[in-house]
């Protein structure tokens, strides 16, 4: 008899064990959280987020809504270690329930991420659908990043020029500014560019190929062709436009001799009229300038004519996704909904400097940055994707460094067509070697 009781108890325990961590609503849990229970693992790499989570008792707040749920935040040292760890865990079937992705890792983990397009968080997010893969929203971006062109309004007025609306207008405006101010000041730069550091040319070299035809997936598409740099391609068109601008003398007498710190300081001292930087650049300019009363912004006008749509780059960052390895996908989705709800997201948004990606929680832009939106109310945002695994593999194989290429455009005897043809040759060979279709 004792044996029978023991067997029955063991069988009951096993049954409980098998069904104990279900995310279904039939578990009979109490509270106002739809009865979802069990533990979720949430992996992050961001130090700011970790500090905010610790200071604001994320688990306690989540428990107010889901009393039977537990959150374990797994902080990984930095993003490179994070991707290494996630790669290994993906193959070991041990991904966390909720993970963050970058735009360029969404394609890498697409097989391991659930579609979140039916969530309220997705519906309220302004960028999520733009990063959908095969119609599936695999992550909800936490923040939005924008690129701006900063300019001095008083210098524009003095030179008699207006904010440019097309690429040709940008060239003409820059030229006029250079002629006007350069006549008295040989050190003047219409456009400040710290080309010695190479990376400051990224607004032109990295984003313009995506903006020419509004293709945020440009890098990924390049990985699918043998000769992406051939005449007529977006990147060929973009780089010829950049080359024309860079070699027209509007970058001053020696942009290759200046780093970004120097270029930004010179712009802040009005030794330059224009500088292209991200939203992060505003603080640097404010720190170096005596006054920013006359500072304005506009989006980089890449279009050739006014008949084309005005496109500007928007990047989503930190895409929160639910993995297929989660044993509690319903609870994980509930966590995503909660994270982007009034209970958590607005507080975190005010803690960080980045812009909101949620339409239901708008964050006012700095008035200087908001001017760009006022100037282009009909602007079309292009969701920029930094390039997936295939692109990165071919890029590494060919040593394609677009930022260095931008700086090389400023050197004597540089032949852009020859450089692009050489890249095409290397690209074809790399794709064959890596067997990328």
């Amino acid at each position, binding site marked *: 008899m004792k044996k029978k009781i023991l067997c029955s108890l063991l069988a009951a325990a096993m049954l409980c064990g098998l069904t104990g961590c279900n995310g279904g609503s039939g578990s009979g849990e109490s509270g106002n959280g739809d009865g979802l229970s069990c533990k979720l693992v949430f992996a992050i790499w961001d130090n700011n987020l970790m500090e905010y989570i610790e200071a604001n008792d994320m688990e306690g707040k989540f428990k107010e809504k889901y009393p039977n749920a537990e959150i374990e935040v797994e902080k990984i040292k930095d993003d490179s270690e994070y991707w290494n760890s996630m790669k290994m865990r993906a193959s070991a079937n041990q991904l966390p329930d909720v993970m963050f992705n970058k735009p360029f890792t969404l394609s890498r983990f697409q097989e391991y991420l659930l579609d979140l397009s039916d969530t309220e968080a997705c519906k309220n997010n302004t960028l999520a659908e733009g990063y959908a893969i095969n119609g599936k929203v695999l992550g909800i971006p936490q923040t939005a990043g924008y690129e701006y062109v900063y300019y001095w309004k008083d210098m524009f007025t003095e030179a008699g020029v207006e904010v440019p609306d097309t690429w040709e207008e940008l060239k003409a405006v820059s030229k006029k500014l250079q002629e006007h101010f350069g006549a008295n000041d040989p*050190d003047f730069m219409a456009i400040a560019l710290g*080309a*010695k*550091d*190479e990376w400051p040319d990224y607004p032109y070299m990295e984003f313009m190929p995506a903006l020419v035809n509004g293709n945020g997936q440009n890098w990924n598409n390049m990985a699918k062709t043998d000769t992406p740099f051939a005449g007529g391609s977006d990147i060929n068109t973009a780089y010829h436009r950049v080359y024309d601008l860079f070699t027209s003398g509007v970058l*001053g*007498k*020696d942009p*290759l*001799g*200046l*780093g970004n710190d*120097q270029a930004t300081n*010179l712009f802040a001292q009005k*030794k330059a009229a224009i500088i292209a930087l991200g939203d992060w650049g505003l603080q640097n300019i404010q720190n170096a300038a005596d006054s920013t009363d006359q500072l304005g912004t506009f989006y980089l006008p890449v279009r050739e004519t006014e008949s084309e749509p005005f496109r500007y780059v928007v990047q989503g960052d930190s895409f929160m996704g639910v993995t297929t390895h989660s044993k509690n996908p319903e609870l994980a989705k509930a966590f995503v909904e909660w994270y982007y709800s009034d209970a958590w997201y607005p507080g975190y948004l005010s803690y960080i400097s980045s812009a909101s990606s949620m339409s239901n929680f708008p964050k006012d832009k700095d008035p200087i940055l908001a001017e760009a939106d006022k100037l282009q109310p009909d602007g079309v945002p292009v969701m920029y994707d930094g390039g997936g695994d295939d692109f*990165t593999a071919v*890029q*590494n*194989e060919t*040593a394609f*460094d677009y930022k*260095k290429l931008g*700086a*090389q455009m*400023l*050197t*004597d005897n540089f032949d852009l067509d020859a450089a692009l043809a050489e890249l095409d040759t290397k690209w074809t060979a790399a794709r064959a070697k890596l067997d990328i279709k």
Partner: protein
Amino acid sequence: MFQNKDLWRSLGNNAIYFCVHLLMIPVELAFAVLLNSKLRAAKFYKTMVFMPYIINGVAISYAFSYFFSPINGAFNNLLELLKLEMLKQNWLSDENIVNFVLAFVSLWRFSGYHIVLFTAALQSVNHDIIEAATLDGANAWQMFRYIQTPSIMLMVDFILFDNIRGAMQVFDIPFVMTNGGPGYASSTFTLYTIKTAFTFSNFGLASAMAVAIMAIIILIYVVQNKIIHKFILKGD
């Protein structure tokens, strides 16, 4: 690796550092002899020449990048002050001169170290020999050529080796001052190796480069040693 023209160009740039430093070694030795003589305030000068070596290399490079800046750069302003405007150049972006500018910064930083090492070696030369040579009527040149130089050959050997190693592995100065640019005009072997590893994630090739530079250093050292001992110092 052997077909990579940017890598060969980088290695060629290393050769500029090597040659400039090599040419300066006799001058450094002469300075050491001067500081070792009964010079007034010799200690102060020794401190002054050694100072650049103990300052952080990144800080030096950063300061010199402002010094050679095309706008508000102190060096161009100095030339203007001396009415030598015709000598003003784009010091960090002219492909023909950028490596010599960087080699000059390297020289400014490391010469003092070599001078102090030479001074220390000269101080260890046996005073009896010097006294005997003086009594025999040796002049300053003869003393330098036949007494001091042979006595410090071990240190000369070390400095020659240090020059090869330093020139082949130079990194911080071009990295901070020009980022190896324009293009790869001022890149060095180490700079290119690090870019290959960490920008293009090609760790296999970068490892091969690291081994190759070690082999190159040994090879140059052996050849240089043979030349110096067989032809230049054959009498010793």
